[in-house]
């Protein structure tokens, strides 16, 4: 059985990553980032993954 907790942990990790990335893009960079394009691309992918986690979470797995 799919455990809802796994999706909760993944959603949290993705959101942490997305927050840091938005901050790098719009507030201040750390100086360690890749190019703005790659950073944006990864942010888009992270948010898509996060929405997927939310959908799975919402539809069938939690108690």
């Amino acid at each position: 059985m799919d455990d809802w907790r796994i999706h909760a942990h993944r959603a949290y990790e993705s959101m942490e990553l997305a927050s840091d990335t938005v901050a790098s893009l719009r507030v201040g960079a750390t100086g360690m980032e890749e190019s703005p394009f790659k950073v944006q691309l990864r942010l888009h992918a992270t948010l898509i993954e996060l929405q997927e986690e939310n959908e799975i979470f919402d539809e069938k797995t939690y108690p």
Partner: protein
Amino acid sequence: MQIRDAIAGIPYAKAEIESISEATAHRDVNLPRSTLATLVESNPPLLAERIKHSFPDANQRSKFVNASMFLCQDDSAHAWALNKLADRYTPQNLALLSADENFKLHGILADHIAALRGDVGHLQRQLGPLPDYDLETSTASAVTGDLLSASGASL
């Protein structure tokens, strides 16, 4: 002066507050400057130029950036709550809940997920489509391919 007066009646408490001029006068001139103050400079954001171009007015720019970060903070709060609930409600702990408590937990989870979905959707709309970067076109497709296959989604 008010702080000194307030502290005066407290046993064993001693005020050691200096004005800037007093502190400057007492400063040890032999100390290296780096021990007195550390100047921290942040790098500009990666999209600084684009944001400036889209929002020439500093107030508008600030509102836009603040709105983005507010969304992220709100999202992070919901994701953090879900993470904590997942840690707390192990299968063993969940088995101890009554039907009513289980129903309430279900409601709490559903509320956090709904809020998270809404805010992430808002953030996605705010980010908009990826811009074209002519100089990086050659690497973009490879990176896109990797990420798309990893996420199983389309941009």
